[in-house]
């Protein structure tokens, strides 16, 4: 059972986000493994373990050859990683990202399953996994809150507005997993040490056979025309509870004619 996991390395969410002059997100500091991707990594490790063989390969796209987040996922137990890092990817949109990641996944031989988070914590478009599946012509099930493999089939509980759907797909397939699908492990000291020597194959867009004119700013097909501070939201009404707050709340709701 060989599983590829798409992981994103993002600026630390604890730091305030900021934009460059060209409106791209500042990513020049240290990047970390997106927490939402730790669920996919853990799920992959458990599926490989349950299958009794195989390995987990990470695929990522990041500027400046950044590998700090990948090392975290390798320390959890992934075997190797492919990093695509190229200045031509600056300004890449979701579709460009999917094209690059799909090409990188195509270099992994014998992949039975591709896992991804439902969305990244800094971009949150929620479309990249399904776009990757479309490019690779794979069946897909998104927003999985439970994943099981049996007899060449992946069985998934897919989150819906009303509850969940039971779905299944033959392998190979792509599945995007929600946070909470499993409990990610903490890397052990042994794992952290082992991760330092695990292979990370760093590639450029040209290495993947992709024309740099169709990715990044050149291929995004969109133009940011303005970024501005959001207007302050209208202040809500705060009622100090002097023992009569419930009466005022009832009056407020009655005034809206919602009672």
């Amino acid at each position, binding site marked *: 059972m060989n599983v590829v996991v798409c992981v994103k390395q993002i600026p630390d969410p604890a730091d305030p986000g900021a934009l460059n002059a060209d409106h791209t997100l500042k990513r020049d500091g240290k990047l970390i493994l997106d927490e939402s991707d730790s669920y996919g990594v853990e799920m992959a490790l458990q599926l490989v373990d349950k299958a009794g063989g195989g390995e987990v390969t990470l695929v990522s796209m990041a500027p400046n050859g950044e590998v700090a987040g990948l090392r975290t996922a390798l320390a959890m137990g992934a075997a190797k990683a492919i990093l695509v890092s190229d200045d031509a990817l600056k300004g890449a949109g979701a579709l460009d990202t999917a094209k690059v990641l799909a090409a990188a996944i195509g270099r992994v031989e014998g992949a039975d399953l591709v896992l991804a988070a439902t969305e990244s914590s800094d971009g949150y478009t929620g479309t990249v996994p399904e776009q990757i599946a479309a490019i690779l012509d794979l069946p897909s099930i998104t927003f999985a809150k439970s994943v099981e493999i049996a007899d060449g089939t992946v069985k998934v509980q*897919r989150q819906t507005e009303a*509850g969940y759907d039971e779905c299944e797909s033959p392998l190979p397939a792509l599945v995007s997993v929600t946070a909470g699908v499993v409990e990610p492990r903490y890397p052990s000291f042994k794992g952290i040490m082992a991760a330092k020597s695990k292979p990370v194959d760093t590639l450029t867009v040209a290495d993947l056979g992709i024309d740099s004119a169709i990715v990044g700013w050149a291929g995004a097909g969109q133009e940011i025309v303005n*970024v501005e*501070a959001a207007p302050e939201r209208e202040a809500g009404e705060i009622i100090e509870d002097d023992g009569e707050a419930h009466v005022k709340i009832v009056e407020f709701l009655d005034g809206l004619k919602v009672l």
Partner: protein
Amino acid sequence: MALSKVWVHAETNENGVAPITLEMLAKAREIADTVEVFVGGDGSAIAAAVGAHGATTVHATGDLGGKLQGVHVAAALAAAIEAGGAPDLLMLGTTYDGRDIAARLSVKLDKPVLTNNIDIDVTDGIVVTTPIFGGTQLVKTKFAAGAPAIALFRPKSFVAEESGGGAAAVSDLAVPDTGAAGAAKLLNRHVEETTGPKLDEAAVVVAGGRASARRPSSR
């Protein structure tokens, strides 16, 4: 510049047409001469509801049976668009199925998709507004890859309002063979019982707690 034609994705639930669809229809009427709807399911079941909100046609795949929405509805849309029926813009909700359909369609058409929008303006091209950094900043992005633009909107971005139209005409949206990509199946649906309104659909939220005084802009 008003758009010539907009297609709005009709999301359905146990109560009929989902609020997000009716909200997008209100905005679509404002920016386009012709507003039509597409649905991965039975068109006649929603024709009256979306017609009352301004849609003149429902492009419907019919019952998809055990097929998933994303790959099949996107394939049907791509085929219709390639056959010459392209709208200027497709509007979908930032929802589970909305994102799947938009993602598959963007690859089929090789067009960008912009999600999580809260507004749209068509005065000078198609420009969507997206909140970032926890809603403290707004990004305005113009589609620059030609028609159709694919934009997804958050619930409650617009206010739904009936326009008094009659039932929309139902048109078949043929689903082509999707090959291996369409092999995933839906086996069973589980509805988890909930009580009370959905928070993201509530017009007014009453909250309490010690932190309220520190966040006067919260409501």
